[in-house]
């Protein structure tokens, strides 16, 4: 083999090395690693569920248990008001909750990134307008906006995703804008400008790869928030009644008097599931931030 490498190869080698380095830095944080492993496990379980469990067991007309029976050998976490297994509902609930979390986060991060980069890159009145726009939405209480949106739109998973996604983007936009400004102030961007690189080239080749890591970290944190927001919307009665979600299990336990009956097994599992999943996302997100955010590096 020759020792001469093409610039492309060099770039790839560098990129690989950087990924390995990032991974090592990330993995050195035990909490973040633990969060990632547990999160991975949760996602795998959620994805594999249809192969190992029958969704029709969630159908009330097929329920075999006594209503609100406490945990026993057949139902490890007891049953709900209609005799369905709470364990099964909690596990199945992860699917919609995660779906809503990921989709809403994705939506908000895409919007946020677009606005953030545009606001930083173009400057002038575009930037000023977008900045004002972002600041306006940044200060509005996002949960209140989300409530308003989901009260107005027809009920369904899509509405929840849109309601959360459309209201959670401003902080991402701010973050991305700051990062873009930092990157664009570096000399090599000026060189790229001088060499005649267009907007698309500079954004695509230099800015986007530069902000991506931080956006990734940010996304993880936003997912956690979206999961909580989803549960909160369900609790307030504007959620989707057609699918089993953690928020819905909690809301119906409240609504049908399970709490009066002392059926703690209807309230604790979904609540703890929310806390754990959000905690996993937070740990991973903070881990990523520690690695990627120059501010936090010492």
């Amino acid at each position, binding site marked *: 083999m020759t020792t001469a490498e093409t610039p492309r190869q060099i770039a790839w080698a560098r990129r690989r090395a950087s990924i390995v380095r990032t991974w090592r830095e990330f993995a050195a944080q035990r909490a973040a690693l633990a969060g990632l492993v547990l999160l991975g496990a949760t996602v795998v379980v959620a994805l594999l569920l249809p192969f190992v469990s029958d969704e029709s067991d969630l159908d009330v007309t097929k329920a075999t248990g006594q209503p609100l029976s406490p945990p026993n050998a057949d139902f490890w976490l007891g049953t709900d008001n209609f005799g369905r297994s709470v364990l099964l509902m909690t596990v199945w609930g992860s699917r919609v909750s995660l779906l809503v979390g990921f989709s809403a986060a994705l939506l908000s991060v895409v919007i946020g990134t677009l606005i953030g980069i545009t606001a930083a890159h173009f400057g002038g009145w575009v930037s000023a307008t977008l900045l*004002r726009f972002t*600041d*306006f939405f*940044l*200060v*509005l*209480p*996002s*949960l*209140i906006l989300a*409530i*308003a*949106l989901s*009260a*107005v*739109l027809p009920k369904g998973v899509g509405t929840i995703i849109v309601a959360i996604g459309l209201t959670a983007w401003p*902080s991402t936009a*701010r*973050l991305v*804008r*700051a990062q873009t*400004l930092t990157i664009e102030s570096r000399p090599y961007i000026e060189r790229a400008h001088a060499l005649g690189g267009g907007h698309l080239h500079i954004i695509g080749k230099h800015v986007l790869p530069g902000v991506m890591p931080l956006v990734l970290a*940010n996304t993880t*944190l936003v997912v*956690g*928030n979206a999961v*909580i927001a989803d*549960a*909160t919307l369900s*609790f*307030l*009665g*504007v959620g989707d009644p057609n699918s089993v979600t953690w928020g819905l299990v*909690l809301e119906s336990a*409240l609504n049908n008097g399970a*709490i009066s009956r002392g059926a*703690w097994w209807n*309230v604790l599992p979904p*609540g703890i599931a*929310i*806390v*754990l999943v*959000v*905690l996993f996302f*937070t*740990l991973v*997100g*903070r881990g990523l*931030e520690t690695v990627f*955010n120059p*501010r*936090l590096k*010492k």
Partner: protein
Amino acid sequence: MTTPDQAAVLVDAGEHRGGTGTARFVLKKLVEALISVVLVVVLFFFLFRMLPGDPVAAMTRDRATSPQQLALLREQMGVDKPVFVQFGNYFWGLLHGDLGESRLLNNGRPVADMIGERLWPTILLVGSATLLAVILGLWLGIRAAWRRDSLFDRTQTGIALTLWSVPQFWLGLMLLVVTNGLFPSRGMHSPDAAPDVLSQTLDVLHHLVLPCVTLLAVFYAQYMLIMRSSLLGEMNADYLTTARAKGLRDDLVRRRHAVPNALLPTTTLVFMQIGSVVAGAVTVEAVFSWPGLGQLTYDALHGPDLPVLQGVFTVLASAVVLMNLLAELLYRVLDPRVRTS
């Protein structure tokens, strides 16, 4: 919600270019806040016009109403006019403190009155929770950062991260169940309290405990994490090393130099986060039947009583905008760098 570390970036990202006079700066911020408030009004007005259903038909559903009466009602409510005329009327009313009338909850009552009587309980709840959360959060954050990676730091960070992952309404329910009758479960007054001022005050405080602790639990965690990370950022700064080199005692260095500098972005953030505290109050008030704006929102949502929802949201969002204006002005006053540059 904004995550703590992100939030630290957000504050830094804010532009604080100097050069303009203070008066001009204040004026500019005032105008911006005013525009924001107008935008809030526009936003919620048109958002709630998207809802399906004829408000007049809904209003009269339980009563026999003739077509003439319906037409009259439409005219009175102004819903027969084009939407822009409606907006004009609404805005004109707003300038005079008129937020429309409730349709379901308190039919015919001015929304402004309903909000007025609910405002103080919410201010009391949000205010006391924020105050306690700030004190607790900042203090714990400082200690945790100063003794980084000690058992204390790890315990506190762990607790904060966990609390921060808890849905507020669930935490409230758990507290309600676990304390089982130690504290009143509803409202903010007990009808049996003696009429003297001391008993009344104690009575309200007694009712305040659970909702306040619920709100406090999540928000102190946030402030603690923010304070911790911004202090960690400060601690590596050169001037601290210099101060230490000069032989200053550790706690003196902490008190005189690092903390005041780290406090600045944190307190600003406290103001910026007031919006999410207010949103948190909605669910917490609903859990504890606290007679504030959050409870009103919850009730109005189930109607839905649109004029009330619109009014509450407009007032809440505008209040948050104004709090932010205050934060920015405060930042200007507090930050020596911004002032002198």
